[in-house]
């Protein structure tokens, strides 16, 4: 639908035109070029997706188009919005433009709103900044806007503070503010990255509808190829500050011409879906036969009827409610769910970091609650841990070698310095890091390298269980692919069991043999990945799967239509 619209208007003058845009940042020790010679345009009613991995300069382009770059940036070239050149425009000229002709939706709705001001007032303020409207009219328009962005009971909700809204609703309010003055251009920088997939689908639907209604041009900055396939008319691919490929979404995503685009798309984990089997044959769970896996062997870790309650009395929050699961030797259990579903809490209970309020955890056959602390400590030498944040996972004051050595210093104190060094070098080699990194500081490594250091630390004791909590969520897809490859390879070699927590269904589908879907502290369903994620039993899992955008615009269009139809049907069903 959007594609046909785009082809109907190409005659219109572009609302945004970048011509040879360059941005150089002055850092403490050097000049860092972030954007080099970027040229692109967005026409009214058209959505251009600017995609690329972290550090490619895509957000810098978006900020430059708003004239919002930090003081240490030097901009060259032209950035024209509706006839005004942003480069070299004065602050007053920019202020008149921003929020009126062009407005922006940021990634994090929690920080984009003033926490101490009612949302109605914040929207009215944006209106009155640019138009001569009475306070009363502005307030009435704010209610209208909230209705347009799909906030239920807008008359009541204008009085709400941001903290009283969910993340998705907050992003709707941010969008309401962005469209308050009917801008000709909307710049959305990763507008759905901080949101769960089901909410992401709703927000994308909303943006698509609004853009179509008003003929607004949209510059969508994102790293998510599924979002691109779902929303964009045209795509510009950025790499190292340059645009390497531009074209209609179907050409770029299905028939990429540049090698980088091809590699990027190849690295995107694809969700195989029952109805699209012929298009996306990428793989059933490829970990069907790990060594020693099988239901006959005793589980490495077993959670029985676990409940966790935080706080007491009225303010108590039930984080987990009757969760039972086990991981057997050599197999990978994927734990999926949306934010707040309790999947990370499960991982922490399994690690013994959070004591369960009720239920039992057995690790390697021993009940954790009944073992003495010394014995428990010894048991834990069989665990390896990789957590999400590549920066926070390693102590910045230690060298990589010291980080990896830590488990050895805790559990293998008898080792000589020489033995320790050779073990560290061996494990670093296993995760495919060069030997020289031993003396480097974690801060000198890239995110992917740091996650591999974490992995090396987790594996240096040759554990029987690896607990990985979103180990690749902070990484770019190409890096994610290589890290997952390393884990898979080592699992085949060493035969450890793996509890793999992730919000990314496609990754879990490729990586885990069994999967457990969590929702609101409970396990909604669990089973073999091939079964559960292709033919889910519960409506929730179906909804979750339907919301994941796939990086193929043709398939995605069909999926969107189907999802909306199911949703409509679900509404009538719920009424019955």
């Amino acid at each position, binding site marked *: 639908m959007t594609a046909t619209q785009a082809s109907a208007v190409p005659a219109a003058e572009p609302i945004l035109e970048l011509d040879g845009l360059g941005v150089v940042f002055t*850092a*403490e*020790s*050097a000049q*860092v*070029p972030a954007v080099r010679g970027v040229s692109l345009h967005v026409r009214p009613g058209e959505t251009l997706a600017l995609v690329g*991995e*972290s*550090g*490619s300069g895509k957000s810098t382009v978006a900020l430059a188009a708003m004239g919002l770059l930090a003081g240490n940036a030097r901009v060259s070239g032209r950035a024209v919005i509706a006839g005004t050149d942003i480069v070299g425009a004065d602050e007053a000229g920019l202020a008149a433009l921003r929020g009126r002709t062009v407005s922006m939706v940021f990634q994090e709705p929690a920080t984009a709103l003033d926490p101490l001001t009612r949302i109605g007032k914040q929207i009215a303020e944006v209106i009155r900044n640019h138009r001569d409207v009475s306070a009363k009219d502005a307030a009435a328009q704010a209610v209208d806007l909230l209705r347009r962005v799909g906030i239920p009971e807008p008359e009541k909700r204008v009085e709400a503070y941001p903290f009283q809204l969910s993340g998705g609703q907050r992003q709707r309010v941010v969008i309401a503010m962005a469209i308050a003055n009917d801008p000709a251009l909307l710049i959305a920088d990763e507008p759905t990255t901080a949101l769960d997939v089901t909410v992401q689908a709703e927000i994308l639907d909303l943006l698509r509808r609004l853009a179509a209604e008003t003929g607004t041009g949209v510059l969508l900055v994102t790293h998510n190829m599924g979002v691109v396939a779902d929303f964009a008319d045209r795509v510009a691919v950025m*790499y*190292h500050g*340059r645009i*390497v490929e531009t074209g209609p979404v179907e050409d770029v995503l299905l028939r990429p011409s540049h*090698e*980088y685009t091809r*590699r990027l798309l190849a*690295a995107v984990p694809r969700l195989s879906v029952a109805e699209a089997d012929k298009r996306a044959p990428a793989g059933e769970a490829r970990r069907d036969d790990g060594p020693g896996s099988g239901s006959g062997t005793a589980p490495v870790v077993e959670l029985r009827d676990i409940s966790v309650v935080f706080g007491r009395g009225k303010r108590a929050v039930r984080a987990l409610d009757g969760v039972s699961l086990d991981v057997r030797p050599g197999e990978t259990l994927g734990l999926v769910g949306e934010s707040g579903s309790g999947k990370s809490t499960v991982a922490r209970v399994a*690690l*013994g*970091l959070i004591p369960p309020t009720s239920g039992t955890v057995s690790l390697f056959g021993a009940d954790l609650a009944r073992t003495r602390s010394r014995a*428990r*400590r*010894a*048991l*834990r*030498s069989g*665990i*390896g*841990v990789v*957590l*999400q944040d590549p*920066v*926070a*996972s*390693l*102590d*910045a*004051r230690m060298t990589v070698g010291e*980080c990896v050595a*830590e*488990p050895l210093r*805790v*559990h293998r104190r008898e080792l000589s310095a020489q033995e320790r060094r050779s073990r560290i070098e061996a494990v670093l080699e296993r995760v*495919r890091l060069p030997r020289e990194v031993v003396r480097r*500081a974690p*801060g*000198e490594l*890239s*995110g*992917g*390298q740091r996650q591999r250091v974490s992995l090396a*630390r*987790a594996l240096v*004791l040759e554990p029987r269980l690896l*607990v990985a909590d979103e180990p690749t969520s902070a990484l770019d897809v*190409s*890096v994610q*692919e*290589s890290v997952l490859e390393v884990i898979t390879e080592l699992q085949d070699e060493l035969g450890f069991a793996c509890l793999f927590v992730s919000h990314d269904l496609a990754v879990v589908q490729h990586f885990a043999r069994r999967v457990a879907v969590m929702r609101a502290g409970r396990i909604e369903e669990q089973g073999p990945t091939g079964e559960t994620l292709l033919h889910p039993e519960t409506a929730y899992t179906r909804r979750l799967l339907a919301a994941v955008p796939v990086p193929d615009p043709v398939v995605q269009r069909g999926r969107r239509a189907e999802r909306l139809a199911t949703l409509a049907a679900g509404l009538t069903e719920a009424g019955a």
Partner: protein
Amino acid sequence: MSAVIQPATTPGKADTPRETSGTRLAVRRFLRNRLAVAGLGVVVFFVLFCFVGPLVYSTDQTHTALQQVNLSPGGAHWLGTDAVGHDELGRLMYGGKVSLIVGLAAGVLATVIGTLWGAAAGYAGGWIDAVMMRIVDAGIAIPALFILLVVSAITTPGLAGLILILGLVSWLVPSRLIRAETLSLKNRDYVLTLRAIGGTHARAILRHILPNSVSTIIVATTFQIADAILLVAYVSYLGLGVQPPATDWGGMLSAGLTAAYSGYWWLILPPGLAIILVVWAFNAIGDGLRDAFDVRGRG
């Protein structure tokens, strides 16, 4: 074009400049801060002045010399003499020694107590933390000067006693700083990882939390030293500090003030300026260190 493409394992990071080590970067940042470097210069000057100065410019600071009281600057006495005939320049060195020793020692003592208390409270958490921090709150509610006056009224402290008392009244603020730091550090992923694989609490504190708080601790120490030097001056000014013939800058100021109306400016200005300069210098160093160490600032 293909030259731009690198192996998939090295993403956009490749062309950012290589980062030098944290310590060297901090030193470089500190040296670029002119006020902080000036502060460091002032402190070095006064340390040399007070500890090396007497070797060069030797004076008698124990015996009174009543035949040469209140001499104006010039001749044998570069800064004149005071009401009992002590050479004022020599006395500035002699008193400065006491001020600096007490200030440094009390500042360090306060930070050590504060660090231990704050780290223990923050790491333990729960009700232990609550009780420990309410004690700190109660302590902060009582003005330090009031406690000092009461203590001084009861006993006449010696040098060690003075250090102990000053340290004991000023550890509260650093304890709060370190507790906050510990609270955030103990939930860092690397501490959680260590605990998950069976690392001990001692290891978490000694290997991760304290090393990562070092910058906070050092900065807190400099500010504590500045405060302590000022506090010594207060106490001595009120006549409750070290007893004659020993003295410090506060005591000199107090003694000189009685002569203010006689126009003996050399008894007031030198100790007053010395206090102001040294306190300012330590504060400037503290500011410089805080900015230089700010690890969060470079993501």
